[in-house]
């Protein structure tokens, strides 16, 4: 049991931290890392692409990829340290994040040599943006019930259907897409995994505006879209297995990393903010709530590290990711709720105010935190996964 860095790891941490200190531009830092949008607008996107290129030039993109594919062959522990430092520095999520973290490892495991050659270098360099075409309307958490059809037309597939909740599709050059290629087969055995050029005729992207006004997600429509056969990843009709690789990397990366920063700011505010007793910190129930959140933030952090240790010891990412997803997203909600208890109406203003200069941040949290317990598998689905796959309870 050792929570401290080994000397080599400490050195790696120091190296990356120093590099970030020297190179991260102040104007692209973010207050809210939980808000993992590709970018709110084209201009921000361009700045973040430039940032990815700068990182790439210094060899800091895709560090856990094998050296032969342009990575550093970093150990899992190094990746963990990398992530910790990256979020601590308040650096924005890279525009290529989903490709780097999800698609890249999937292609390395399942892709053809040609696919690897074509895509992996551009993913790292930030030359092309990707979106993830998995979710469908009507499927909810039951991903494998997807209905977007791919019909075999000899040298290509013809794709028709609709995806939803597609992050960043409006900026994307490519899409990694799940389609039903055999409608007769049992539902997990008729799925294929395709790479689709978003410029192909027949693709329409329509933004899905969130209740907070954010335009991050999209609906994507496919109408007679031609996808060359060489863009099939893994075996035909067995794309579910390929998707599992992607999903495992997705779950193990799920949110909650900046809870500590949010909470630290709330504790500061509690010491300044007026209340019935002044400051609010003098109220025992405010201290109790802050302390409880601090405890939960620490618990989440250590539970995550324990899971990482299991992976360090060679176990693959597994359903314990659901614990982090469930608890982390519920905690995000509770932090947002507490900001409202502490700040009252100030947490509903989308502008700086004299008493709470960062009122808008809490306004965004209050509106935005609801999505974390839904997106990426609702809390109800996470509880099913924990109940069934971790505890072994029977399916309902």
């Amino acid at each position, binding site marked *: 049991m050792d929570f401290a860095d080994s000397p080599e790891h400490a050195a790696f941490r120091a190296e990356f931290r120093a590099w970030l200190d020297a190179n991260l531009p102040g104007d692209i830092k973010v207050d809210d890392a939980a808000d993992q949008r590709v970018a709110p607008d084209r201009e921000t996107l361009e700045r973040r692409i430039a940032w990815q290129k700068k990182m790439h030039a210094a060899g800091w993109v895709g560090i856990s990829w094998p050296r032969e594919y342009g990575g550093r062959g970093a150990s899992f522990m190094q990746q963990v340290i990398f992530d910790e430092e990256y979020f601590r520095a308040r650096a924005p999520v890279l525009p290529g994040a989903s490709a780097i973290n999800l698609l890249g490892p999937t292609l390395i495991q399942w892709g053809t040599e040609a696919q690897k050659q074509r895509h992996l270098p551009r993913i790292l360099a930030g030359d092309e943006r990707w979106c993830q075409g998995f979710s469908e309307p*009507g499927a909810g958490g039951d991903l494998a019930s997807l209905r977007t059809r791919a019909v075999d037309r000899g040298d290509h597939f013809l794709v028709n259907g609709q995806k939803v909740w597609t992050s960043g599709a409006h900026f994307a050059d490519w899409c990694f897409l799940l389609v039903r290629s055999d409608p007769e087969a049992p539902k997990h055995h008729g799925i294929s995994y395709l790479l689709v050029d978003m410029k192909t005729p027949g693709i329409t992207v329509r933004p899905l505006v969130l209740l907070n006004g954010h335009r991050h997600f999209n609906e994507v429509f496919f109408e007679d879209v031609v996808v060359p056969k060489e863009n099939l990843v893994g075996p035909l009709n067995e794309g579910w297995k390929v998707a599992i690789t992607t999903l495992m990397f997705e779950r193990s990366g799920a949110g909650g990393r900046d809870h500590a920063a949010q909470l630290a700011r709330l504790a500061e505010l509690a010491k300044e903010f007026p209340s019935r007793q002044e400051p609010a910190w003098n109220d025992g129930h405010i201290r109790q709530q802050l302390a409880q959140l601090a405890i939960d933030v620490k618990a989440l952090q250590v539970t995550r590290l324990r899971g990482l240790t299991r992976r360090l010891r060679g176990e693959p990412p597994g359903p314990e990711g659901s614990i982090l997803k469930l608890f982390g997203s519920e905690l995000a909600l509770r932090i947002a709720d507490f900001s409202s208890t502490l700040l009252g109406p100030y947490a509903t*203003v989308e502008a700086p105010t004299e008493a709470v200069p960062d009122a808008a941040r809490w306004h965004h949290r209050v509106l935005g935190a609801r999505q974390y317990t839904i997106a990426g598998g*609702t809390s109800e689905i996470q509880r099913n996964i924990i109940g069934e796959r971790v505890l072994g309870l029977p399916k309902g």
Partner: protein
Amino acid sequence: MDIGFSEEQELLRETARKFLEAECSSGFVRERMATAEAVTHTFWRQLAEQGWLGIVYPEADGGSGLGLVDLVVLMEEMGRRVMPGPFFSTVLLGGAAIAEAGSSAQRREWLPPIAAGAAKAALAWTEPALRWDAAGITLAARETAGGFTLSGSKLFVGDAHLADIMVIAARTRDGTTMEDGVTLFLAPKDTPGIGVSVLPTIDETRKLCEVRLDRAEFPASALLGELHQGWTPLSRVVTRATVALCAEMCGAAQQVLDMTVEYAKLRVAFGRPIGSYQGVKHQAADMLVAIENAKSLTYYAAWAVDRGEDEAPLAAAMAKAAASDMARRVAGTGIQLHGGIGMTWEHDLQLYFKRAKASEVAFGDATWHRERVAQLMSP
């Protein structure tokens, strides 16, 4: 004992529901909330024609003289449709303060036009150091030869930008208690020295403003009620408005539950309607329990306030504490059970969620009112 609504009240409910279903669709709400007025002239005139803009004022003042329990019925229905615009600020705050504290001349001047839909009102009482009791009123009123000069700022004032007449609470002296020394003033639109700006707050259907007073001058005739003694009428107005808000929150929450249940019956996942899963069903049941309890406390508070029972302030504090927690929970769970679609701008739940959040913290959140309950429990 008979804890239900009368036939007249049920009739009012039915009328209100039909009217609002027809005239206050979510399309209307979305269209209007994008404007500064947040209602149309036509709609406002219709409210007047229904008699709702004067519902709680005495008949002598152009109102219909109904009680808080009657108002509860109307507020529930307005909540169901997230009715936009300055009804609350005009009728239940600004107008109610004039009704409560005004001289007969002041009442005659303002209440009939308000009831007729010809004037709008607002009540400026809260300030940047947000407190919902008398200690929160610190804006200084300096007595001058001809009257008073007010300087300072009021925050989170509902619909001040629309008000033809604004009631402003200020401190005219440091009394022996916090309650002593609060005075109400009447400020007609365009009073020099008063600046109003709309804040970008979460619920666009009801705007909140900042009101800045920079040596604004008020003649003695602008006094509303007695000098230094404004807290008593003000707190009466606020208590009534708080209970009315609770009722609106209950109505809105009931609508969220109805929408959620409807959706849960139709939406299929893993081969079954999601409402058949206990994970959804039990949360819906908890929503119902929370709503029923908040309704119970709201009805009780409305009755107690109407009758002037001793425990009316306690009942009102209990109702708001319960309604605030309930509103957050119900709106949040409603979105949760709708899943992704519930998070979108397109879905009407966002309107209810944002209204619920704004109402949760208005007039004090659950924490504020629990503390008040504790103080009132402990003589």
